[in-house]
């Protein structure tokens, strides 16, 4: 019984959306355009510290709008939302674990020529054995 209810519930929620009309889409569209302009303007300022975070925050807001209203995630509840949120969470975790590694590795074990910013977490091991890594000097020919 529960299954039929799950499907029926979603169907009902989808139908309700019909009465709201296209105004919602126009508003979302306008908001997306405004955010695009904002992100371009702030992006051109080349904010040193927060540029990336700001840009990604704006992108996340835009993405949420698209997912919720254009893709009807606001109406598709239950498993649909779970699937979407899970996939985003796994992307975040994949990136996080890989970056933890790059950030806390023995410095010379990073590619030669790389200049990673210092990681907020100080790892005893990398500081302990000092030493510095130099890239082979690029020779500018021609």
């Amino acid at each position, binding site marked *: *019984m*529960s*299954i*039929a209810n*799950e*499907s029926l519930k979603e169907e009902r929620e989808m139908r309700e959306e019909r009465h709201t009309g296209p105004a919602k889409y126009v508003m979302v569209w306008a908001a997306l355009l405004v955010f695009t302009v904002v992100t371009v303007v702030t992006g051109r300022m080349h904010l040193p510290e927060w540029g990336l975070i700001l840009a990604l925050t704006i992108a996340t807001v835009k993405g949420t709008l698209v997912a919720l209203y254009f893709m009807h995630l606001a109406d598709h509840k239950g*498993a649909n939302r779970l699937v979407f949120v*899970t*996939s985003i969470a*796994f992307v975040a*975790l*994949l990136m996080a*674990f*890989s970056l*933890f*590694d*790059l*950030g*806390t*590795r*023995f410095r010379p*074990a*990073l*590619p*030669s*020529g*790389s200049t990673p910013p210092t990681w907020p*977490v100080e*790892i005893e*091991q990398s500081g302990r054995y000092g030493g510095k890594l130099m890239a082979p000097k690029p020779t500018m020919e021609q």
Partner: protein
Amino acid sequence: MSPSPSSIAAEPGAVPAPDSHHEHHPSYLIDGTTVKSWLLSLDHKRIGLMYLFWVLLFFLVGGIYALVVRLELLTPGPTIIDAMTYNRAFTMHGVVMIFLFMIPAIPGVFGNFMLPLMLGAKDVAFPRLNLASLYILLTGAIIAIWGMINGGMDTGWTFYTPYSTQTTTTVAPILFGAFIIGFSSIATGINFIVTTHTMRAPGITWFKMPLFVWAMYATSCIQVLATPVLGLVLLLVVGENLFNFGIFDPSRGGDPVLFQHLFWFYSHPAVYIMVLPAFGVMSEVVSAFSRKNIFGYRAIAFSSLGIAFVGFFAWGHHMFVSGQSTFDAGVFAVLTMLVGVFTAIKVFNWVGTVYKGAVDFKTPFAYFCGFLYFTVFGGMTGVAFGTASLDVPWHDTYFVVAHFHFIMVGATIMAFMAALHYWFPKMFGKMYHEGWGLVSAALIILGFNATFIPQFLLGNMGMPRRYYEYPERFQNLNVASTAGASLLAFGFVIAAVYLTYALIYGRRASANPWRSRGYEWLTESPPPTHNFVGPQPTYDEEPHFYVEPKKAEVPDAV
């Protein structure tokens, strides 16, 4: 009307009465006999059987490669093939066994066949996608096999860069084949998840689903979430090999360790794609053959999901000595322990299921014993690997080879064979010979041990894997291992013979020869084309419910 499932369930082990409408609903095996009606069938049961055929064929191919490898290792020097052939042989053994046998085996065959039956559905949610996924698998297999015939590849199945981007062997077609096989895996996963969500018969709530369904659900989640990452990585390696994108090229600042992160993000959960269905099969088998409700049903169901989730975040334990940071290694090591805990919960609950049960020691149960053994030792060595410091001497030695053959291959093969025997009457409507079944099970379990216990010891001695020649001190154990492998192969030959014989001359099986309470046994053997006749049935009882109604009132907590 065919017998309604609930009417059978009321009377344990009852054989359905012959029915006047039988002839109108022929079994799926004889409903359409043309070649086309098989090749283009949308029936999940026929697709499952086609999977069975191909998967067994690929198992044979991979097995032959394995025997070649083992024979070559009989002596320290060159034995039967040269180094290049050997390197290709072990690579192809890995690629074929993993991508063409282990990953599609239980989901493709038994998942396809049993999932809709267990959910009281007429078919999976997307039958056409289901058929497509089989043909995608075969397309990928053809491309990969074409690559093997035209040279083969010598990178090992892990395709580590930069070796895989520099080698002159035919990497591209084989990796591209594996990439296509990934789509098949994704399609199967999507199909099973949607089927579980939408196709359950009235009465089958989430916590009344058979545990095999839970295991398949967890497996499908991994397939859907992990496979795309592998797809991308394979494409990048192919691109790197053909066009030199330089994305993992160390001379341009690329990081081969980043490749390993992305690779293991799929390939570690892939281990659970192989082994979770095995756990599911065994939960069914142990309950059916000890005629007992599952001890800790929710614990087993949740631990499947737990393994699927945590298994994603343990991938770094393949990289403890790869130059990965010590901090990351610690994080991955802790998470690896959690996988061990989830598996331990399952093992305890399986043993608990037998407690106060009524054990019938048939062939599937013999495989359950082997499975329990392989899971305990394979799992415990896995936890030992997770302790980081022990991994340092063992990494990439034969200890690893023995460990993953125990847990991933041993457990999966045991489950595959158990499932084949347990569901053989349901699938083909025939019975196999019980005596031969037990003999071959004993041979396979013994052969497996004889093959891989020496390899544990070789690993302790420090023999690295993928060695064509080896120092002489390793020879004795290698000979023992090769001898074990031939015993193992012999066991499989016996199984092949008596099962083929049973297929043709076997005694006709009743609808429920094991008197099992699993939902799939509520229909006839073999089932009619749309699984059951009439409207969607309702299910009142749990699966695995072997209790006399009057005793069911007071649950006995231990």
